[in-house]
């Protein structure tokens, strides 16, 4: 899932400025399960903003609405009237949700309430870790299901580096060395031979180096009239 966390309240208040009417829009998918921008968090933030307005000034008319998924236009149609009434829309979706709202409602002023952090999972209640960096060409089949792009600090394809010590990465004592994990896993599975092949340099054009990415599935596209 996409993992995000709320921006500091001061920063959010700065983004809202003097707008009298604010609509806080939560999202019912990833940011709900990482407790950053779901219905409950939208309610809490709304409540804090209203209280803060009473104490120190700021937008007084703060209401909330939560859509099931902010990153799909269809779901955003349910809040059309609410968006029209607001001076500023404070999105608690990930960066995709914020942009989906802004694209769907070109006249609305949409600002982010969250910092979108990474793609990852909760390893325990309240603790999330990064697992994938969306490199666009997955290598997990070669590395025992442990991602060297998201989890090795140097994104090495043929690790570990000389800084690996006692299973920890030289970048920080709390970071597991991804290549140690890969080695241990492949050893336990009797597949160490996978490490005998040298991985060639990665083609980063499928990642951030190739401009914005896009997937087109002709089999799924709907035939337009006249075609």
């Amino acid at each position: 899932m996409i993992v995000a966390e709320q921006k500091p309240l001061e920063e959010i208040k700065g983004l809202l400025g003097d707008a009298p009417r604010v609509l806080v829009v939560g999202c019912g998918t990833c940011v709900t399960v990482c407790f950053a921008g779901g219905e409950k968090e939208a309610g809490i933030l709304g409540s804090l903003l209203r209280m803060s307005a009473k104490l120190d000034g700021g937008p007084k008319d703060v209401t909330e609405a939560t859509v099931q998924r902010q990153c799909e236009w269809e779901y955003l149609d349910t809040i059309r009237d609410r968006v029209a009434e607001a001076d500023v829309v404070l999105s608690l979706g990930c960066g995709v949700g914020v942009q989906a709202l802004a694209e769907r409602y070109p006249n609305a002023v949409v600002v982010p309430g969250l910092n979108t952090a990474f793609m990852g999972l909760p390893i325990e209640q309240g603790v999330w870790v990064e697992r994938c960096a969306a490199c666009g060409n997955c290598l997990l089949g070669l590395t025992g299901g442990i991602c060297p792009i998201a989890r090795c600090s140097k994104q090495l394809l043929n690790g570990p580096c000389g800084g690996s010590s006692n299973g920890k990465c030289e970048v920080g004592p709390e970071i597991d060395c991804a290549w140690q994990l890969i080695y241990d896993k492949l050893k336990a599975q009797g597949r160490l031979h996978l490490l005998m092949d040298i991985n060639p340099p990665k083609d980063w054009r499928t990642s951030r180096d190739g401009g914005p990415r896009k997937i087109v599935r002709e089999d799924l596209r709907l035939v337009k009239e006249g075609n």
Partner: protein
Amino acid sequence: MKLQTSNSKLQTANFQFQNKACDGPLEFEIGSLELNIVAFCCHYCAYAAADLAGSLRIQYPASVKVVKIPCTGDLDVSSVLEAFEYGADGVMVAGCLEGDCHYQLGNFNAKRRVNYVKTMLRQIRFEPDRVRMFNMSSAMGRKWAEAVTEMDETVRRLGPSRLREKETKETKETRELVQEAI
């Protein structure tokens, strides 16, 4: 600034009322002058302790309003904020003694949530002391009364919440009538 001026007035009025109220057994709501403390009490200990205090006829401030929850581990931060947003002057979260929660660790989780609420209150520059966690067993009726008294004192010192609705014409008239009566 304006808010603060009206606040200190309210506070003064509140103290005057309190002083007078001490003279007689007056027990009634007088709009914005009565302090409101919401106490989220776990069913097994704090609620039972409050019940016991009642049976033992132990006196404690009437400002407290008890809300029973199954365990403080079930406490929702949004409920605490809601209480403040709607004008509560203080919020108590009262659970079992540490190590004695009937759901094992609920009260430790609650403690973290209470601290989280405090950080949120600090962010909006609202006194974090208005929310506090207490622990007691079901046999501690007296401890309940002490806890409420302590909280009542803290809140009284801080004065009424700045988040309360301002006094309306009607509530002002009622208050003045009551004060005259005293």
